[in-house]
């Protein structure tokens, strides 16, 4: 199709040959800089306060840095040392169990509750939503649960006694300590709002169509609500995985990692190293964790298709 006829009887070559003036100067030209004006402030902050400290921390992992004094390069010594540390292996084990448990126990409920909340008449739903999502300060919940878990006078023990169960040792029980740490999260209904927002976007015609086909309550959830939520679930799951692998503050305050090392997560462990003035080693642990998070995320995202239509 090289010899295509162009209206006016000219050939392609003839058109290419015609002279062209450049546009008048007063007209504004495409500006490649303009969009950078939007990006640059954020990029600078992200570079300086996001990536730069990270790179610096990464660099420290190849040194014997200890707070003060000269820092010298020691290559992979920190890596071999930390690799051979049984406590780190234990911390990773705890972290994985903690992450798995918290995802199993706290991830599904908000989705389900969000789906069910959407059933309420709009006015009721708005009120219920408001009450579900009332935020509690993290600092406040620390103090509250610390009190509730007291094996002597705490409310949880009272409930256990009321139910006629054997007395629990709560945070003292190495087998259940992770469960009790996660337990308050079950009540918190974390990201349900996000699911509700996503559910709102599902056209009701989908449900009507399913109804015509005779789909019941659960079937509608299974075939419409959940697939439509997939991209959001996928993202929240990614964050849940990343977040729970980085768990630190809550177990640190609640159980201090005990009893034994039953609730000491990796980040707690690296924080302890840092307190013990082993900066280099602690960043090495961070690199391990970072690598594992990367691997898990990549694997998971490879196998999980986000788009329900794809």
């Amino acid at each position, binding site marked *: 199709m090289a010899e295509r006829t162009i209206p006016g009887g000219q050939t392609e070559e003839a058109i290419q040959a015609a002279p062209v003036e450049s546009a008048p100067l007063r007209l504004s030209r495409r500006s490649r800089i303009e969009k950078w004006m939007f990006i640059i402030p954020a990029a600078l902050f992200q570079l300086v306060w996001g990536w730069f400290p990270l790179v610096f921390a990464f660099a420290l992992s190849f040194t014997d840095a200890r707070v003060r004094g000269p820092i010298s390069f020691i290559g992979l010594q920190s890596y*071999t040392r930390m690799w051979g540390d049984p406590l780190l292996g234990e911390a990773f084990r705890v972290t994985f169990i903690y992450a798995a448990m918290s995802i199993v126990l706290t991830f599904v409920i908000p989705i389900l509750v969000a789906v069910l909340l959407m059933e309420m008449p709009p006015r009721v739903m708005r009120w219920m939503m408001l009450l579900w999502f009332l935020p509690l300060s993290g600092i406040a919940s620390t103090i509250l649960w610390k009190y509730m878990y007291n094996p002597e006078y705490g409310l949880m023990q009272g409930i256990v006694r009321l139910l006629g169960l054997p007395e629990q040792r709560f945070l*003292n*029980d*190495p087998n259940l300590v992770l469960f009790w740490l996660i337990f308050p999260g079950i009540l918190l209904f974390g990201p349900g709002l996000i699911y509700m927002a996503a559910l709102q976007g599902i056209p009701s015609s989908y449900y009507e169509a399913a109804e015509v086909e005779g789909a019941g309550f659960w079937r509608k959830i299974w075939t419409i609500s959940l697939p439509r939520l997939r991209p959001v679930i996928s993202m929240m799951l990614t964050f849940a995985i990343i977040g729970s692998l980085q768990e630190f503050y809550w177990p640190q305050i609640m159980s201090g990692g*005990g*009893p034994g090392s039953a609730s000491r997560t990796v980040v707690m462990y690296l924080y302890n190293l840092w*307190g013990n003035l082993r900066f280099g080693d602690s960043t090495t642990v961070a690199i391990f964790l970072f690598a594992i998070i990367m691997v898990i995320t990549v694997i998971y995202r490879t196998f999980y298709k986000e788009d329900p239509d794809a």
Partner: protein
Amino acid sequence: MNKQNLMSRRQFLKTALATSAAVLPVTSVLASSASAPARVQSEITIITSGWPLTPMPTAEEIEADKARAGYAEALQTWLDENPGVTFQQVEVNIWDQQAIVTAISGGTAPTYVFPTSIGGWTNAGARNAFVQGLMADVGPAIEKYGLIGKLTPGALSGWQPINEIGDAYMSFPIDSGMDVFHYRRDLLNELGIEEPPLDWTWDDLIALAKALTAEGRQGLAAPTWMAEAILSDHGFDILSQVPSPQNGWNWMRDTSDPKWVELLTEYRKLVFEDKAVYSDVSYTTDNFTNAFVNGAVGLMRTNVLGAFGSAAQENSMAAMANRIGKPYEEVIGFRGIPRGDNGYFSNPIYVGGVAIGPDTNDETLDKALGAVDYMFLGAGWDLQKAGQYAATQDLQAVFNYPIPIDGKYTYEGVPGAFEDAWGQRTKDDILYYAGLPKAPDEALYMPVEQNPGPDNQAFEDAWSTINYVADEVDPAAVLKQAQDTWNSQAAGFSSSVDDAAFIDGAKTYYEALDAFWKDASPEFYESTFKPWYDSKVLPALG
């Protein structure tokens, strides 16, 4: 109307943007300059986070709390003698290891810091931190203020070995504490149990704990580190550690002695079978004291300081004595750490010191410690106490430090003495324990280690497991695991001390130990120390 609005909104936004653009750098510069020069108002500024000295109280504060008048007067006297010095209060949690390490790393540590919190709550950690430059050398000030001469022999032996590092000193002693078991003397009398002797043993203690256990009362309130304490009260700290100069890291852990397992098993029996121990991973001193004064426990391991709180405080022991209506010494008794059943003992007294942040210049360091010396060991102390007495007329409030490191139990301007407030028996008991000899400290003999080594986490985990896990736990396995973990961690470290120097140091150290124990407790020496020394240490040192 539309247009009008739009213009003004546009203008508003522009103005707002321009203002914030202008304000941002200006404020930050102002803010930063405000923080920096504030520190150089006078020639010397001593930065404190409220411990051990607070800045000069305001007139209003003195008005509100007369007891402060004494402190203010004492501090003012010192300030008059040292013109140009001011105190500045900052908010740094010097008791939180990570917080203080962060502050030191950024050069923002206050002048006064607490050495063991920097070192992860162990003396070895603190010494290592000192060697790494996290604290300033206070040696010159110690010499200048003639500190060594002011300390009682007991306090000196409790402080010097730990704080002297080479030619330098890590901290400046200010007070002392003691680990003790408090018991309800009135309860013992009531139950017809005989009071334990001053040199009681662990068997005595366990028997007493069991005897005190009854419906609604547990025999013993124990902190998290109780399991560890039992072992170290039997010599674990010395006997579980073996030199191994041939390795990269010069020490190994060896917990193979069945003795340790026996002790732990016995303690766990007390906790989980006899239910005689009041303990929880989350309990604090508050829980213990509360339980003790409410009669829920009969025997409590705490710091002796906790017992000398003011009677004005609802759950203090003094208040309890008042409630019962008997003199303090008839209600509260205490004993130091029991001897091991093989005769091992340790001196329960420790001396708390204040260290100085590493970015402090010599002049400030000198003034900062001068103030501490004056306020705690000099005339300032008496002035404070006199002021306190004048305000409260309460001897118990005045004599709230039971173990003065300078041995002074009376203060100028205070009519009465320690024994008037707390009883003669209390004082005698304290003096007995303060007089116990202190075993040679490794620190005085071994070359200084520059590198970090494995920390104590593996063993802390073991103690916590032994203390709190109710289910089937095999102390032997737990101990073995801690030992193996520690040893495999140690394999990753290397020492800065060369082998020859290490062996030399270790030889002198163990010889000193040998001599000490032969003399201080022949029973322990013969039954435990000597066989161990011959079989484990001597072969390792070649």
